[in-house]
């Protein structure tokens, strides 16, 4: 109980009252042997902080958190048609910076999963719920003047946010 009380008090530094110059109580400490050694048995946070970046758990989670971007290098054998460019764009292989002047922007395509939900009620008042999963593309635009827009299947005519707006 006392341990928990001190633990909670130590976490709230701001709520601790400042120590006064004059102590309110004085306790006499009995003399001890000269070979007393204080040992800290808690977790060595300084060492842990240096070792954690190389932890195996971080490497495993990094494949989810920091998935490497797909990069394609090469030169097409024939000129790309509009259909080719569309397929490459939707698959995220043409993400990058486009345009000039005020239209200069960063474009990023993403693929997401959506679930279509259907409800059918037959003559016997039995409702059947069907869910169908499919993939759809989403385009995120960030313009040089701060405007952003997210174009997706749900909102294909989305407007750009104002320059000082929040995306």
């Amino acid at each position, binding site marked *: 109980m006392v341990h928990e009380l001190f*633990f909670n008090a130590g*976490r709230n530094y701001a709520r601790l009252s400042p120590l006064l110059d004059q102590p309110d109580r004085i306790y006499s400490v009995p003399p001890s042997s000269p070979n007393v050694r204080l040992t800290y048995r808690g*977790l*060595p*946070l*300084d*060492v*842990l*902080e*240096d*070792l*954690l970046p190389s*932890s*195996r*758990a*971080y490497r*495993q*989670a990094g494949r*989810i*958190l920091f998935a490497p971007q797909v990069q394609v290098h090469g030169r097409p054998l024939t000129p790309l048609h509009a259909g080719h460019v569309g397929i490459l764009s939707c698959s995220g292989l043409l993400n990058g910076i486009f345009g000039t002047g005020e239209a200069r922007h960063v474009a990023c395509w*993403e693929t*997401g999963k959506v679930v279509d939900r259907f409800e059918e009620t037959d003559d016997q008042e039995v409702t059947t719920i069907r869910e169908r999963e499919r993939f759809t593309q989403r385009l995120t635009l960030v313009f040089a003047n701060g405007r952003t827009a997210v174009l997706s299947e749900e909102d294909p005519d989305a407007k750009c946010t104002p320059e000082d707006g929040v995306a």
Partner: protein
Amino acid sequence: MQNAHLRMGWLEFTTPPGRNSTGILITLPMDRVIVEPAGDRDTAARCHMFSVVGGDQDVAAVAAAVAEGARFTTEGPDVPRIVVTLGENARAFRSSVTIPGRKHAVRHLVGPDPVPGPTR
């Protein structure tokens, strides 16, 4: 680096006492956390990632809680207490960190968001 305790936060996991079990309180040091605050105060904030260290049993309990989609309380230096959750179908990655001079290795747990891309 020194004075890591001034930079690390804390992850707290509590379970209320039941009829046949006692409640538990687990507090682990947390070196990193990514939280997206919720719109209202009644909803737990969406946690995209946290990383904690601790003993074997404590980390195992937190890993089980992550798998169940439990709620945690996080706080840190200059960061207020906030209730977070990793959501459903979350998983945790565990590993051991060997510290020179210590008999037992410290367990490390990273709980990434199963769907980190889209945000609310």
